[in-house]
C-alpha cells in the first residue's frame, strides 16, 4: 500500500471511530472493506482482471460463508440485506466504467456491466443449485478446502500461474505470447485463503461460532488487515465487531496513534531506506567482498522486519480506531535466543495458523500410529513439513522450498541441541552475567541463522543464492 492509500484508510477509520461510532458501523466496515479490495488491487495486463479478481474474492467468501453458516441462520433477513449490499457495492463499482474520467476505485476501467451482471447472476444460480443439490457435510467441506488450496496453488506455483494466465488470455483474446506470472497478481488472496480455510476447518470440527454474512465477509476482507495481515481468528474478531462502540477513550486514540505513527516510520522511513541497500537479484551479482555482502544481507534482514512489522503496526493502529484489537504479529523476533522462540515471535498469526491446522493435527496423527516413529524422526518430519508449507505460502518455488527446509532443519537441530544441553546450560548459567551471555550469544547465532535463510527468500534463483553464500564466506 502506498502512503497516500494508508492515510486515506486511516482517515476514514478515524472519522468513523470518532464521529459515527456505532451508527451503521457494520455496514460501513463491510462496504469500506469491499471498496478497499477493489481500490488496492493493482491494474493487471489481463484485461478486466483487476476487477474480476476482487470480485472473485467476494464470490469465494460468500460461498464459504454459505457452506459454513448454520442452516437455520442462512435465510435470515439480515443476510439477504448483506448480500444485497455486497452485490450492490460491486455493481456500483462496475458502473464507474461510465464515468467520464478514469475510475479511482478500480485499477483500470471495469468490464462491461452486462458481463458483470451475467457473472453475478451465474454465481447466484450456482449458489442456489449447490444448496439444493448438495449437503454441506464434512466431505463437502473437505472438497471445498481442497478447491481453495487448488486456487491458492494456481496463483503461487509459477508454472501453473503461467498456464492459467495463458488460458485466460486465450479466453479474452489477448496476446498469448505476453502471458506471464505477473498477470495474476491477486492482492491479499494469501490472507483471504487462510482466513477462509480456518473457518472451513473449524466448521468441519464443529467449533466455528455462528456469524452472519456481513460479519463473515468483514472478517475475511477486513480492510485494515487485508493486504498484510495479521490473520485473525473469527471468534475473536466477531467479539470486537459485536461489542458496542462507545466514544473512543484517550488511551485508545493514543495507542492507535502511536502504533500507526510507528508503523509509518518503520515502513516508509526505515524499511524503504534499507531497501536501497538490501540484497536483491541484481546486487547479489554485483557485490564484491564478504564484508559488503554481509552488509547487504543485514540490510535485507532488517528491511523485511521493519517493512512487515510496520504494516502490522499500521493495521493494528487503524483497527484500534474502529474498536478492534487485532492480534500482534511480531514481538522483537531478532532478539530471541533460539530459532523456536524466533518463530514464536515472527509472523505469529501465520505460525499459529500452521500450528493449529497442520503441525498439531499431523503430530497427533503420527502419534496415533500403532508403531509410531521415533520421537526425533517425528519432530524432524513435522517441523520440516510445516516450514516447507510456510515457504509455499509465500510462493511455490525452489527457493521458498529451500527456505522452508532451512528453517525446518534449524528448528529440529535446535530441538535436539536444547534437549542435549538443557541441563548443562542450566548448571552453567547460574549468575545473571552468564545468563545474559547465553541469551546474547543465542540471539546472535539465531539472528545469523535467520539472516542466512533470507538469502533464499530474497533471491529468485538457487544458483545466485549459492553464489551469495560463497561470497559471504570468502569463497568467491
Amino acid at each position, binding site marked *: 500500500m502506498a502512503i497516500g492509500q494508508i492515510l486515506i484508510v486511516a482517515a476514514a477509520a478515524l472519522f468513523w471511530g470518532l464521529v459515527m461510532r456505532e451508527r451503521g458501523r457494520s455496514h460501513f466496515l463491510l462496504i469500506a472493506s469491499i471498496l478497499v479490495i477493489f481500490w488496492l488491487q493493482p491494474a493487471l495486463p489481463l484485461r478486466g482482471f483487476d476487477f474480476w479478481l476482487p470480485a472473485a474474492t467476494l464470490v469465494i467468501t460468500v460461498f464459504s460463508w454459505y457452506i459454513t453458516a448454520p442452516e437455520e441462520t442462512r435465510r435470515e433477513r439480515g443476510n439477504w440485506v448483506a448480500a444485497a449490499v455486497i452485490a450492490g457495492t460491486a455493481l456500483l463499482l462496475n458502473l464507474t466504467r461510465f464515468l467520464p474520467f478514469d475510475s479511482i476505485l478500480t485499477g483500470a476501467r471495469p468490464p462491461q456491466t452486462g458481463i458483470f451482471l451475467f457473472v453475478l447472476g451465474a454465481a447466484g444460480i450456482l449458489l442456489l443449485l449447490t444448496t439444493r443439490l448438495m449437503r454441506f457435510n464434512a466431505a463437502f467441506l473437505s472438497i471445498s478446502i481442497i478447491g481453495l488450496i487448488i486456487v491458492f496453488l494456481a496463483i503461487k506455483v509459477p508454472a501453473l500461474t503461467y498456464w492459467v494466465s495463458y488460458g485466460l488470455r486465450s479466453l479474452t483474446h489477448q496476446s498469448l505470447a505476453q502471458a506471464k506470472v505477473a498477470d495474476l497478481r491477486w492482492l491479499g488472496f494469501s490472507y483471504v485463503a487462510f482466513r477462509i480455510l480456518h473457518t472451513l476447518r473449524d466448521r468441519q470440527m464443529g467449533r466455528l461460532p455462528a456469524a452472519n454474512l456481513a460479519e463473515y465477509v468483514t472478517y475475511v476482507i477486513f480492510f485494515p488487515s487485508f493486504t498484510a495481515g495479521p490473520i485473525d481468528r473469527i471468534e475473536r474478531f466477531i467479539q470486537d465487531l459485536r461489542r458496542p462502540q462507545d466514544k473512543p477513550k*484517550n*488511551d485508545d486514540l*493514543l495507542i492507535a496513534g502511536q502504533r500507526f505513527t510507528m508503523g509509518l516510520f518503520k515502513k516508509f522511513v526505515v524499511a524503504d531506506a534499507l531497501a*536501497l541497500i538490501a540484497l536483491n537479484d541484481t546486487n547479489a551479482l*554485483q*557485490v564484491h*567482498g564478504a564484508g*559488503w*555482502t554481509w552488509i*547487504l544481507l543485514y540490510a535485507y534482514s532488517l528491511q523485511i522486519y521493519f517493512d512487515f512489522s510496520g504494516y502490522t503496526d499500521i493495521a493494528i493502529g487503524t483497527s484500534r480506531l474502529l474498536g478492534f484489537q487485532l492480534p500482534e504479529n511480531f514481538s522483537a523476533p531478532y532478539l530471541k535466543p533460539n530459532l523456536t522462540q524466533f518463530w514464536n515471535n515472527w509472523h505469529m498469526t501465520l505460525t499459529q495458523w500452521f500450528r493449529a491446522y497442520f503441525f498439531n493435527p499431523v503430530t497427533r496423527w503420527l502419534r496415533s500410529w500403532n508403531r509410531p516413529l521415533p520421537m526425533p524422526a517425528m519432530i524432524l518430519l513435522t517441523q520440516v513439513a510445516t516450514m516447507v508449507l510456510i515457504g509455499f505460502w509465500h510462493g511455490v518455488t525452489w527457493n521458498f522450498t529451500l527456505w522452508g527446509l532451512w528453517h525446518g532443519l534449524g528448528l529440529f537441530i535446535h530441538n535436539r541441541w536444547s534437549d542435549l544441553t538443557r541441563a548443562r546450560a542450566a548448571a552453567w548459567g547460574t549468575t545473571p552475567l552468564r545468563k545474559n551471555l547465553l541469551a546474547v550469544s543465542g540471539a546472535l547465532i539465531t539472528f545469523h541463522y535467520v539472516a542466512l535463510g533470507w538469502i533464499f527468500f530474497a533471491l529468485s534463483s538457487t544458483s545466485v543464492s549459492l553464489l551469495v553464500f560463497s561470497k559471504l564466506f570468502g569463497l568467491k
Partner: protein
Amino acid sequence: MKNDIKFINILIKGFTLFILLNGIFALWQPGKGQVSAYNVIFPGRQRLPFGENSAQAYNLSLFNLDAMFASHVINSGQKPGDEFRVLLIGDSSVWGTLLKPEETLSGQLNSANLSACGKQVNVYNLGYPTISLTKDALLLSYGMKYQPDLVIWLTTLEAFPLEKQIASPLVANNREALLGLQGSYGLEFDPQDPAFVQPSAWDRSIPGQRRALADVFRLQLYGVMWAATGIDQTYPADYTPAQTDLEADPKFREAEPPVLDEKSLALNALETGFRIVDGTPVLLVNEPMLISPGANGDIRYNFFYPRWAYDRYRDMMAGLSGRNGWHYLDLWDLVPVDEFTNSAIHLTPNGESLLAGRIASVLPGMCK
C-alpha cells in the same frame, strides 16, 4: 496511562513544536550537505553524483553542491605535498556517460601514472552531465577550494548559447551560489530569470525541503552500494548509437549561416572561469566530436552542429585564446567516428584513451 490525558493539548503542543522547529530550520538553514559518510565510512566517489535510474545506478542527481562535493574523492583530506592536482571540468563526456570510472578521461590519465612539475599527477573528475559554461564555472568555483595545480576545461559550442546557461537543473537550483559568482567575478546573468528555482518560506522549512533532505540521505545510503559494487551508473547492453545520417538543416539553434553572433554566446561565463581560477593554470580544450560520414555530412558535422557554425566557433575560440593568452587545445577531430557511443560527444574507452594520450602529452608544460 491515565484517561485524563487531553487529546487537544497533545495536538496543540505538537503543532507548536512543529512551527518552532521549522521556524528555526528555515532561518538557520543548517549546512545539510557538509556532513558526509563518504571518505569516512565509504570511499569517495570518482565523479560527482548524477543518476537517472537510482535503483540500478546506486546514484542520484541532487542539487546540493556541498553534499555533491563531500561525496567526491577530492574531499578525502588534505592535499598531499607531492601531488600535482588536476581538476577536470566539463559535460557528460568528461563525467563519463556509459563509461566505468576507470575508463573515463580522469581514470585513464590517473592510470597512466603521470608526473608533472616533479609531482605525481592526480586527476579529479568534476565533469557533470549537462552542457553549460555557467554550470562549469559554478563547479569550478567549488573545486577551487581543493587547491588545484591545473584545471583542464573541456568544452564545446553547445555549452555556449545564452539560453543553455541556466537550463541546467544544477544551475537553476543554485541561484544563491551564482549570485556569489556575479558579485565576486562578474558572472553575467539575469537573477530574475524564471528558470531559477527560488525557494519560498515554505520551501525553506523541513517539510518544504523533504525532497532535498531525502536526497542527501539517499546519497549517503548509496555510499554502501558504491563501496560494495563500484557501480555508479547503468551500463545498458545496447543503446542507440549517435546519429550519423543527419537532417539537411543548416541552422545552429536559431542562428542561420553565415553569422554566429558572439552576443548570443556566454563568452562571459568562460571569462568568469578564468577569473575564478585566479592564476592557476587552465588548459582549455575544444573536446572531440563525431564527424559524420553519413547523409548530409556535407552540411552538418553531427546532430549538434552545422559545419559553418562550428567552423566559426573554432575560429572564435582560437582568436579568443590567442588574445587572452589562454592555453588552448583544439581536439575537435581527434577521435574517429567509430569511437563514439550514444552521442556526438560521448567517447568509447578507446576514444577516451586517445584523448588522454593527447592531453597527457601537454601536461608537463603546464606548471605554474
